């Protein structure tokens, strides 16, 4: 899978830079492509916080999630957000 992903990532980068050149993308396409991170990252956040496998679960991770949202909203650096979130979750688990 790593090889396939590496190849695909490279091909995507290469096609834009080398092959397609300065052809313009239709605006709609451009807009929708730009929304992929918003849609997928949101889905990933919710899946990783509120599910385990195929079940919806609420557990200690909610604490980390809440802390992460606040810290990220206050523009803390990534490592700070991760450390704070992990600490919150670990603390709730330890109680």
């Amino acid at each position: 899978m790593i090889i396939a992903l590496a190849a695909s990532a490279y091909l995507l980068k290469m096609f834009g830079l080398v092959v397609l050149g300065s052809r313009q993308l239709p605006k709609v396409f451009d807009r929708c492509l730009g929304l992929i991170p918003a849609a997928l990252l949101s889905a990933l956040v919710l899946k990783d916080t509120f599910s385990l496998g195929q079940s919806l679960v609420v557990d200690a991770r909610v604490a980390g999630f809440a802390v992460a949202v606040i810290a990220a909203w206050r523009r803390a650096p990534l490592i700070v957000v991760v450390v704070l979130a992990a600490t919150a979750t670990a603390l709730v688990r330890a109680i």
Partner: protein
Amino acid sequence: MKRIFASLNEPELRRVVVSSLTLGAAVGVFALSFGVASVSAGASVWQTCALSLFVFTGASQFSAMSVVGAGGSLAAAFGGAVLLAARNFVYGLALSSSANSMAKSLPRRLFAAHFVIDETTALALGQESPRLRKVAFWTTGIGLFTFWNLGTLIGALAGSAIDPQKFGLDIAFPAAFIVMLMPHLRSKLGRQAATLGGALCLISISFLPVGVPILIAAMAVLVGVRGDN
């Protein structure tokens, strides 16, 4: 390279190189998180490093490991990661008009392609002259690549030594994703796509194989079809 160091007397060039290296250091710390999280999700140190060396696009790497760590199929992990990597194609298009000045020969351009990511594109396009764009692209590209991979290696080695649950490391992925998501929430369309994508994912989790809900969430980009900001 020697020419670049020699001309660090020029304030413009110095500014670009310093920005690139600062970004590199920040990304290196990000890479530490990736290394630790990836190994906690079950990847080996080698697999983790391979992802950073050969895929070299952060959101995709995090996403792939998140799905695999949750027990998803490799296909689902791959699908989500490729979707997240699609924006690099747009970056390539954006940089292609400068491609001639950045990399003169085809082999060099093919080599440059590996470094087409958010940060190199942003820094390069932020420059006014072709020469500065070239310096920005390559300094950021090679600098980030070095920091990213060193960070990944160190993180992966450190992560192998600790118990993920005890340290709350399973929250590392979502925490990183939240940080990555924030800038996208600034636009109305971004907020709509995020809300719809999140909802689609949660709804489909109970009845679709692990990881597939992430791909379903991608349909949320269709809010962009009609929309204007």
